[in-house]
Structure formats: C-alpha cells, structure tokens
C-alpha cells in the first residue's frame, strides 16, 4: 500500500479515474499545466494530454461546460479552487445539474464531479474561509461528500466520479499536506454513502465530518482520560446521509454532540439534530448540542479566527456539558 498524504490521495484517485473511465475529462483553473494550486492534479496533463486542461477564470463556464459534456457522454471532473468561488456560478449546479435527471424522468443524467475545498486557515480572509457544505446538501439531486482522511480522499472521490449523478466533493485545505497514511488504491469503487464509526464508545455520540474529525478524535481522547466514553462518527457523506448509523449510536449512548466548522445556524448539524429528534427522541437523555462557528463572518487575523473557530476545547466542553445532564 502506498503511503499518501491527503492531496496525493486525491491525485491518485484522479489518475485512476482518467485511466479507468475513458469518458472522463478533467479541467479547472491552474489545473493542468501548473498541476493545481495545491498540486492535486499534478502529472495528469502529462499523462492524459488533451483530456486534462486549464480554463479561464470562468466558474460558470467550468460548471456549465461540465454539465453539457456530461449530457453528451463525458464524465467530467472539474475543480472549483475554493468553495467561496462556487458562489459566482451556483446556478449551474443548483438550477442546472441538479435538475437534469429528475425533469427528464431519468432520460438524461449529468455524471459530473466537482472537487472543491474549504475552511479556515490562519490568515485566510472572509471570502476564503467559509464552510458551505449545507448549501449543497440542501439541494436535492446532488451528492455531497467531505473526506477527512487520505483513504477517504481517494475512495470518496472515486465513488463520486463513478456515480451517475452530479457530485460535490469538498476537501479541506488544512488536510492536504497532513500526515501520510497507507492508502489502499486498487480496491473496488464503493457506492456513495455510508458513515464510519471512527472510535467506538458508550456514553456520548459525537458526529462530525471533514477537517473537524481531527479535533473530534482529540476531544474524544481527552474525555476518555476523564472517564467518558465517546463514540466518534465520521459522517463522510451529507447526501446521501447515513441516518441509520447515527441513530443506532444514539440509541446506545443517549447523548449527541454534532461538530462542524460551518456556522451553527442552518448548518448541516441542524439537519442531523432534526433527524435524530425524529428517529431516536426517546433514547435521548440530554439535549442535542451543536458545535460550530458562531453566526459571524470570518475575520482574517489568526487571533480573531482562533476566538471564533471551534477546536478541541470547544468540542470537549460540549461533550462534558451533555454528559453532565442527569439521565
């Protein structure tokens, strides 16, 4: 098994997709010859030539181009450099791609995958810091996934590409150059969907996704030293969302904390809370707690960011808070 960091796992998945699906084409800004601003697409142009190309700074044309090509037999994988830049061309994914299959009664499909990345990094400005997964998860017809590990960066991207519907895979900049891990690269491509229990536990269920998984695991280990057993679930996919895995866990623990980097109000954590209220209300022994960025714009100065973006401490506090509620 090769040892890959997150971004090289993305790169390996792109190589495999272009290799395995002859109908795949791949494009984006600074994508082909420069190999991507984060090196995710390095080497693809050399290997696959005209199937991989650079585009103008034209997000609507990138996304619309992917849709049109998908309608006519291609399987495009495109990059929107930052999720914040997606906003200039949301029409193409929301009004266009998401409608294709439904309105044509299944006659047509738009099997395209959009890779993008998001999140706060020290110093990133308000227009380069947002976590917008809930925007996409709110749109029926889209597949939405947020890989948190190198293995998932590889597996989930391939699952998305292989799926015959439009998919948005949201990576996180802070993960790209993280620790290398052995990544199994030749396995079968799984269907989209499915959460993973990353750590089993019996006292509190902690649901998270994307880069927040790291802080969640750390918080769980802090709490285990305090005698609290936390079950950590990495949701991986928000659409389709694996409600069953979370429900089963909450039926065991009776307590639920949801942590994400997006703003709290209208964040996907609200959807998770609502689903568990539906499915497992009588199992709950304490109110559901959500951890996220307070409803604010993101300031650029690292000290200001640290004051608003939750991490291990905030998650740990939420876990303690929910554990302290008497059953």
């Amino acid at each position, binding site marked *: 098994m090769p040892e890959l960091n997150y971004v090289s796992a993305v790169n390996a998945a792109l190589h495999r997709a272009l290799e395995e699906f002859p109908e795949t084409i791949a494009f984006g800004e600074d994508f082909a010859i420069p190999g991507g601003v984060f090196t995710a697409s390095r080497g693809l142009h050399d290997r696959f030539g005209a199937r991989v190309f650079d585009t103008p700074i034209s997000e609507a044309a990138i996304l619309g181009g992917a849709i049109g090509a998908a309608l006519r037999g291609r399987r495009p994988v495109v990059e929107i450099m930052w999720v914040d830049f997606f906003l*200039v061309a949301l029409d193409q994914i929301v009004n266009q791609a998401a409608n294709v299959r439904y309105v044509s009664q299944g006659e047509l499909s738009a099997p395209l995958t959009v890779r993008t990345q998001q999140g706060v990094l*020290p110093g990133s400005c308000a227009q*380069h810091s947002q976590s917008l997964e809930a925007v996409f998860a709110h749109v029926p017809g889209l597949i939405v996934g947020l890989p948190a590990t190198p293995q998932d960066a590889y597996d989930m991207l391939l699952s998305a590409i292989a799926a015959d519907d439009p998919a948005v895979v949201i990576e996180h900049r802070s993960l790209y150059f993280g620790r290398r891990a052995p990544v199994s690269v030749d396995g079968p491509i799984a269907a989209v969907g499915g959460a993973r229990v990353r750590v089993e536990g019996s006292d509190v269920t902690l649901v998270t996704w994307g880069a927040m998984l790291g802080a969640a695991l750390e918080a769980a280990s802090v709490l285990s030293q305090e005698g609290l057993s936390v079950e950590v679930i990495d949701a991986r996919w928000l659409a389709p969302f694996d409600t069953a895995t979370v429900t089963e866990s909450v039926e065991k623990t009776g307590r639920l904390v949801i942590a994400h980097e997006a703003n709290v109000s209208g964040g996907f954590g609200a959807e998770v809370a609502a689903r568990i209220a539906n499915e497992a209300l009588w199992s709950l022994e304490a109110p559901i707690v959500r951890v996220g960025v307070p409803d604010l714009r993101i300031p650029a100065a690292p000290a200001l960011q640290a004051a608003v973006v939750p991490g291990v401490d905030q998650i740990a506090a939420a876990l303690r808070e929910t554990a302290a509620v008497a059953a």
Partner: protein
Amino acid sequence: MTPVPIQAPAVAGEALIDQFAAMLRIRRFEERIEKMRHAGEVIGSVHLCIGQEAIPVGARAALEQRDAVFSTYRGHGWALACGVPVEALFGELLGTRTGVNGGRGGSAYFTAAQYGFYGENSIVGAGAPIAAGAALAARYDDSGAVALTAFGEGAMNQGSVHEALNFAAAFDLGVIFVIENNRYSELTPTKNMVRDDELWKRAAAYAIPGVRVDGNDPGAMRDAVAEAAARARAGEGPTLIEAMTERLVGHYIGDGEAYREEGEVAAAREREPLVVARAALLADGVSAEDLDALEASVQAEVDAAADAALAAEPADTTTVREHLHA
C-alpha cells in the same frame, strides 16, 4: 523642474517626482511585507504588487477625494496610492488593533472608505459591478464622483466583469475599468485563455472607449484615467483602460513561478516603473543625491511605520462578535 520633496506626499499629483516617491513607498511597503511574511509575522496568503506600482499611483493622480476606488486582493498599492496611512496598513496585515479594519480584513480584503478606498476584493471580478453601483449612486447625489475599479486581465473572463461593463455602458455610468495586465492569471498565461489578448478591444463590443496604455508609466496612466474621468463626470459613461505591466514577484508569496519564461523577470526588471521613472528624473536634471535622499526618507518612513505596527496591540478578540448587524 519641480523641486524634489523631502518626503513622499500622501497622494501623488501630476509631478513625476511625486509619483516616483509614491511608487517607492509602495515598493518599500511590499518588500517589508514580504520579509514579515517570511518571518511569520504576517500570516496567510499575500499578493504583492511589486512591478505594478505605476498603475495605482498614476490612476489616483487623476482622481479626486470624492471618487471611489475598488481594487483586488493585489490592492496594497491602491490603498497606499489613495493615502491610507502606511502604519494602519501594516497593522492590518499584522492583525493588530490599529489595522485599518482591526485585523478583520487581512492582506486580501481590507477597506478604508475614508480615503476613497472602497476596498480590496478576493473574489475575482466582484469589484466591477460594485463600482458600477457606486457610479449609479453618484447619478442621484450630484456629487460628480466617479468610480474606478481595477482588476487583473484574467478577470476579464469572469461573468461579473462582463455584466458590469454592459451595465455601466447601457446606463452611461461613470466607471473607469482598469485592467492591470500582468499577463498571468495566477499560474496560467492569460494569452492561452483568450482568442485575442488585446483586451482593450473588447470595449468596442460595449460601444465604449477602450485604450491600451503603458502601465509602467505613471504619467501615461494618469492621462488615460484623467480622460476617462472627464468623460465620466460629463455623463458620457465608462471607459476601459488596459494597463500593460509585469509583476516582478510571484502571484502570492511562496509562488515558485515555474510557469515563467527563462529570463522574463530579469528583462522585466530593466523596464519596471521605478527604474524607468528614476532614469527619467535624472535625465530631467534631478540630481542623484536628491533622489537618494528621497529614497532614504521613504525607507525611513516605511520602517518607522512597520516598527510602530509591530509594537501595536494585537487584534481585540473581545469585540470579535460585534458589527454583524446594525
């Protein structure tokens, strides 16, 4: 011949010596920022305008205090050309309480409207329609103000810029659209992303005047903007100015610039605005000693501002939740 100032003026006017001093201030500021970034004092992505200083300085020399300027993330030079104090700009990038936005904006997204600088923008092309809106407001308030928006040539391929050009053209809005053509959209040569890389010609499609100027010459820049501003104030609508320039550094600090041609940057250094302006001033009879003295005074001004900003209090976390709503 104009006398050599002892200090750079806050905002340069028509005289080349003043423009030279204003460009120098920007250059020294950017150089210091680069050091601060490498030292880890400034954190996050930074886009320097080294090599492109003549554009903001020349453009601002043709504008007035009542006008509104909208730039991009490569906007430190625009802010300084508009007279934003050096120390407050250092503070913003360092994330201090004394920064123009108290650290909320950072290098790529600060604003200082009291100087007519309506801010940077980190979304390519987003400033153009907003500038059209500023010109729209001027139609109702008799201010006679014009709006200037500057963006890279890569932004000409963004839908918002097209919409802004047509919007301004259709309604005769007083907008000056300035393309800072440094020939690269980040890491990609823009000539490969368009059929015709003479972008000024696109003006014809909007039935507005379009010109290409030497963006390394603050005088040429001033003249082009002065003409555009006169038309705009007369209610004759927008102008598209394509200012040709070269950035002498990477797209962002840390960019390895593998995409640049052999010898390209070295050649650009021979024709960059400071070199050209200094030579012109010498040819004009200004003494080298006077120019050296001016350079030293600008360096001292920038150093003092940097020192003050480095000593300032960090951004105030207790107020971080304020100002989301009125």
